[in-house]
């Protein structure tokens, strides 16, 4: 997985980049909150021009799953 994606995630969640792995379940981070959700939505729209419907988002658990979802949706 691209390092840049991990650092984008780190920025959204406000967590150290070297403390983030692709197999992590991002909702388990202690920094995870409702603002982190908005940051993720904004980051994904800005960088990939994709809007993830809530029901799809709720079925994604790890950073890897999120990354793969975005790759599958890319226009």
């Amino acid at each position: 997985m691209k390092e840049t994606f991990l650092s984008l995630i780190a920025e959204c969640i406000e967590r150290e980049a070297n403390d983030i792995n692709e197999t992590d379940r991002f909702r388990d981070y202690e920094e995870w909150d409702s603002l982190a959700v908005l940051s993720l939505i904004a980051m994904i729209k800005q960088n990939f021009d994709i809007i993830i419907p809530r029901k799809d988002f709720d079925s994604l658990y790890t950073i890897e799953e999120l990354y793969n979802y975005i790759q599958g949706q890319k226009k």
Partner: protein
Amino acid sequence: MGARILGVEYYLPDKILTNQDIENQYPDWNASKVEKKVGIRQRHIAANDESSLDLAVKAAERLLIDFDRKVIDFIIFCTQSPEYLLPTSACIIQDKLGLKKSIGALDFNLGCSGYIYGLALAKGLINSGISQNVLLLTGETYSKFIAKEDIGNRSIFGDAGSATIISRSDEEHIGEFVFGTDGKGAENLIVKKPTAKQGYALHENEHPVIYMNGPEIFNFTIEIIPSLISETLSKNNRCFNDISYLIMHQANKYMLDFLISNMGIDPGKCHVDLLNYGNTVSNTIPIALKDAIDLKIITIDDIVQLAGFGVGYSWGSVILKI
């Protein structure tokens, strides 16, 4: 001939809920993060014995200091938290403001798009010759729908009332409108109970509770608003450079900052200020308009774009000449 806004006022209830107050109750809650990201430091909360129509009446009393109340011949009142299911709040407001009896009065139920709709109704009433001077009021007390432990919504929403006079003028100052509706979004921002289907019944100690699916609302906003802004500009034969100032519904700072950067427009021409009010639903646009006029950010003859969006889903935008 046309219609023109001649004055705007607003009223905020006395009681203030600060981020510090919330943090004192919930020490895990991060007040400074909320101020930085959501852009809200405090919000005003209506008293138990204060309703949306009371807030609108207080705003109107401020406005009517400078206007002859005898000329008002129509009241339109936007609220989603009416004091009563019936009668119409606007009828009670006619009496409270001591307006003449030979006037029209109606309520309409819309949230964050409500002010845009109100301007459209007022323009229609005036340009069709039905009315000369419309009093457009908004009043909202969402705080009464928010559960005590729902810190997310308590930190976002504030209560307020506003009053605007729209009058017949020699020149048209209220431009073309664009509206949109998608009822599929209804379930994402809703007060489900009391409902007619359960005889409006609530259990003992149960209160109406607002539910907001924040991420879905955010998705809706980033999908719809950029095209709403550009369609309204083109319908008015304008481009963003012609606009002196853009006032979007003040939902939260994070969302507004994102929209502004996503649209690639000059942040200096966009209103972002909910620090002391929070999201006051249909009041955010008239509050912003009044503040921008008072601060001389907007002056006579400026071209201003307004855009409201939210619960429904419902959205609308218009361009005004001040």
